[in-house]
């Protein structure tokens, strides 16, 4: 440091002095301080004094959050008011995503601890969290577990401070008092994947009538901290509206009887050596209006695996996912509406109606019923057998139906084949007129349309791309007409379609729309308007006289001692009309691939003024009279309050 005074005199005691330049600069710094503090104070004044009340209100609003209060779903009742599905209140464990630690390692540890506590997988929790982040919604809590067990609740209440993001909340899960009965029909609910936190019906009735069943969620105000953790009791501002009560046309007792009847039919079939019998369906309809009284499918499952916490293990135990579905014969499939089978002889009434209407046969003329039949037009000269090879007599139509004479209908089928091209394909036309080959239009949701094979259909199905012999295979042969005439070959129907067809026979030719919805009520009992099922619609061009011939054949089938269902329904106190069916179908069951007989029975009663149509099918159950007919009898017995003895072995088609 050079110490030199401006006058040049050197000194030792004046080492440093504030120069005017430094003073100016310090003054500038001072000005900087003043400007800075003026800015701060002005801003402080503006925020706290001028807009203070605005921010005070904002700070209050900050704490109050409006949360959605889930509405319980409406109950589902049967036609007599018995509960099919209701709600069970449960305590669920909810987690505020924003309440988790920010730091990755502690965050992971916290998620692990929570998953362990709630006995759910870490993946489950982190998947929910990721979902929530994708939706950019960090304030609404995620449901870690729907039903917390009592020990979990106690533990959480005691250690609340250790898990700041966790809260216990009231919610509802579905309860099924009848267990596995009508499981496929009722369906189940679950989280809406498009709207987090919302429960919607996913399948069956739950999905089809979701608009009625899902209530209106309410709103509540709750004081929360910055992590979304509640700091006060919920104060309801809008009460949730419980979903509406949906009443079905299903009769719970009849439904149970149908489910039991399926088991009975399957057992009968197995007792007779039909080892592959392991499934089936029963449809019971009101033939006057199409109301579905029972809709059973076997095997079935316990739908409660879908309420609350759904785990793969629980689903696998019920055969609902993956390999378990194969080993347990697909319990999730509603065979009554989604299962397609060749109908076999139960289809013969349709052939009869079509042949009568097309004047190919006369109702009371006698045509030969022989043991074998060869179509004159068939170049391969294939021999078609009757199920009873030793019969050789003339039959009129009712007898042919009652005794289920195959060769009678082969001849009719051959006549259809020989029709000139200008007459079109009337058998298929009548099949479609009675609802085959398309969905029934019922309110049950999606169904299988089945198949009614036509000349054009064959042309479309066999092409160069999928078949080396396509030029030959796509041709409509006499055999196709013969097969169609006895409900075999490419024809595929669902049990519901068959029941609808028999309902039309029973009610004098009106095609009903099967439906399950009876009415919908508000919680306070006022009816809710719903779309009524379409009224039964007469099948166009149907001659009632011809229909009564078919009805006569169906009555003879159960009442005539030669009738195929006589062994089952011959002594039934109520007069039942019906038809057996034994349909060959190539099946793939574990350990076996080949043709198996599908056991069918369709009919109605009382024969003169039908109140119920029942259609039963036992998969791989053998002959119609020995498995499906006894099963159907059980349903009639329940419906008419009749006691019936167990059935023995009946040989029939």
């Amino acid at each position: 440091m050079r110490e030199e005074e401006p006058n040049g005199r050197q000194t030792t005691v004046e080492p440093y002095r504030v120069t005017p330049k430094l003073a100016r600069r310090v003054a500038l710094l001072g000005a900087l301080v003043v400007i800075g503090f003026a800015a701060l104070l002005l801003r402080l004044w503006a925020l706290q004094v001028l807009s203070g009340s605005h921010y005070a209100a904002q700070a209050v609003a900050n704490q109050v959050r409006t949360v959605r209060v889930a509405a319980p779903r409406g109950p589902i009742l049967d036609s007599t008011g018995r509960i099919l599905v209701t709600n069970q209140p449960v305590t669920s464990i909810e987690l505020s995503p924003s309440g988790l630690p920010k730091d990755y390692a502690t965050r992971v540890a916290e998620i692990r601890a929570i998953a362990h506590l709630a006995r759910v997988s870490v993946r489950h929790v982190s998947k929910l969290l990721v979902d929530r982040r994708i939706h950019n919604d960090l304030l609404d809590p995620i449901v870690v577990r729907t039903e917390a067990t009592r020990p979990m609740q106690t533990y959480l209440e005691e250690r609340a401070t250790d898990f700041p993001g966790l809260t216990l909340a009231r919610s509802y899960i579905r309860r099924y008092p009848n267990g596995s009965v009508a499981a496929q029909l009722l369906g189940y609910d679950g989280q809406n994947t498009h709207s987090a936190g919302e429960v919607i019906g996913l399948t069956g009735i739950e999905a089809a009538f979701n608009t009625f069943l899902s209530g209106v969620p309410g709103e509540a105000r709750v004081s929360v901290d910055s992590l979304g953790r509640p700091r006060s009791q919920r104060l309801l501002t809008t009460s949730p509206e419980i979903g509406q009560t949906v009443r079905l046309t299903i009769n719970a007792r009849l439904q149970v009887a149908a489910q039991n009847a399926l088991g009975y039919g399957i057992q009968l079939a197995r007792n007779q050596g039909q080892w592959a019998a392991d499934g089936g369906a029963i449809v019971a309809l009101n033939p006057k209006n199409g109301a579905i009284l029972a809709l059973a499918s076997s095997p079935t499952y316990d739908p409660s695996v879908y309420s609350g916490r759904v785990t793969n293990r629980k689903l696998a135990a019920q055969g609902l996912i993956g390999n378990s579905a194969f080993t347990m014969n697909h319990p999730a499939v509603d065979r009554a509406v989604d299962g397609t089978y060749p109908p076999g002889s139960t289809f013969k009434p349709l052939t009869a109606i079509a042949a009568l209407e097309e004047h190919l046969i006369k109702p009371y003329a006698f045509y030969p019923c022989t043991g074998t039949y060869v179509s004159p037009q068939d170049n391969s000269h294939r021999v078609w057998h009757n199920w009873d090879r030793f019969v050789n007599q003339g039959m009129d139509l009712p007898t042919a139906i009652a005794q289920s004479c195959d060769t009678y209908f082969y001849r009719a089928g051959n006549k259809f084949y020989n029709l000139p091209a200008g007459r079109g394909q009337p058998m298929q036309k009548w099949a479609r007129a009675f609802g085959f080959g398309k969905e029934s239009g019922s309110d049950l949701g999606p169904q299988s349309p089945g198949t009614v094979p036509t000349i054009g259909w064959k042309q479309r199905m066999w092409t160069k791309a999928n078949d080396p012999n396509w030029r030959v295979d796509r041709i409509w042969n006499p055999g196709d007409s013969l097969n169609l005439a006895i409900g075999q070959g490419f024809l595929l129907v669902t049990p519901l379609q068959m029941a609808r067809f028999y309902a039309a026979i029973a009610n004098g030719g009106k095609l009903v729309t099967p439906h399950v919805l009876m009415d919908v009520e508000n919680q306070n009992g006022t009816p809710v308007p719903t779309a009524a099922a379409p009224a039964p619609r007469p099948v166009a061009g149907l001659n009632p006289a011809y229909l009564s011939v078919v009805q006569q054949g169906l009555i003879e089938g159960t009442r005539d001692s030669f009738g195929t269902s006589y062994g089952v329904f011959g002594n039934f106190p109520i007069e039942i009309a019906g038809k057996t069916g034994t349909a060959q179908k190539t099946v793939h069951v574990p350990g076996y691939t080949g043709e198996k007989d599908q056991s069918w029975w369709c009919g109605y009663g009382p024969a003169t003024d039908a109140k119920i149509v029942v259609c039963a099918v036992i998969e791989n159950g053998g002959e119609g009279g020995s498995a499906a007919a006894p099963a159907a009898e059980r349903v009639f017995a329940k419906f008419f309050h009749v006691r019936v003895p167990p059935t023995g072995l009946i040989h029939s088609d």
Partner: protein
Amino acid sequence: MLEYAGSQRSGVRAERDAPRLLAVVRSLDWILVAAVAALVVVGLWAVAGITKFQLPNDPNYYLNRQILYACVGGAVLIGAALVDPDLYRRYWRGIFVGTAVVIAFVLLIGHAARGSTRWISLGFFTFQPSEFGKLLFVLALAGLLVERQGGAVSSWRTTLRVVGFGLVPVVLVFAQPDLGTALVYLAALGAMLFVAGIPWRHLSVLGAVVVLVVVGVLWVGPAAGVNVLKSYQQQRLTCFTHPATCRAAEGYNLHQSITAVGSGQIRGRGPNNSSQVKFGFLPESQTDFAFAGFAEQRGFIGAALLLGLYLLVLWRGLRVVTVARDLFSAVVAGGIVVALLFQIFVNVGMTMGIAPITGIPLPFVSVGGSSLIANLTAMGVLLAIHARGRVSRYSRRR
């Protein structure tokens, strides 16, 4: 006689001329002492309210620790006030290297731990070198500046050399990454060059470079795909210019902070009603956003009192620059005062949305031992400079 600063002879002379302890005590700036004491008390008052709800089991946990730090800091302040600042000038090289090594050490630990680390854990106390670094950096650079400068204040060579040395700790801290503290260092560096009297020409060129770098890093760089800053740092810095469109987290923090300040109104809501702090809406309420928490709880009256005390300290600090015994002391005082001003302005301004969001603690208020002790030490150095200046003036008069 001709004598160069930093020479052995000057040191010997300084020791010989060292004023007696009593004279130093007598010539302390008692207004500054009182202002600092009041600041510490107000800071503890603020901490008591802000941290009341941090730990549900122990509302006084942070307050008790902060009181302990204040006591330690007070002791260090007394010690620093008694030390002749010339000591720092003579050993500036050691201070510089030591500071840089410790900060670099922290940086290495941080890299080893694969994250950002600003602290060295000493068991009961986590030591944050960059806080003490603010003071040590000022002392070391002032030493360099005075030694290099001699009296010829106008050479580019000197300016660039000081800037070059100064950038070493800045870069080290920036790499921690602790952008806020790096900016404090830069502010102090600028202030020291300013007080040391480098020409306006140099200052304007340096200022232009700073503006270019800021514009380049914040706006031009990202637009061209070059990111010097981590994206969250950049978001935080530019958020206050467009709070409405800002990315969620930063915009949320700023919004909550402004709400907290505003909801305090004139008289404050008191700790028990301060929902922003109590329910955790205000982020980092005991450190970065301490001012917002204090303003919510104590209102305009409390916040203005705090700002007034800061103003008092800054005024006395600037006065110390003018009474300094030598250029080194003046430069040190200037650096300390401007670093303090910068921290106060950026931190308080950040909570009210008029300054960028940077992780700078509020001096004397934010919870944290390193910050409090370092700031009190700096005040001690200011007091020492004042006292020596006064004493040497008395001796001059004698």
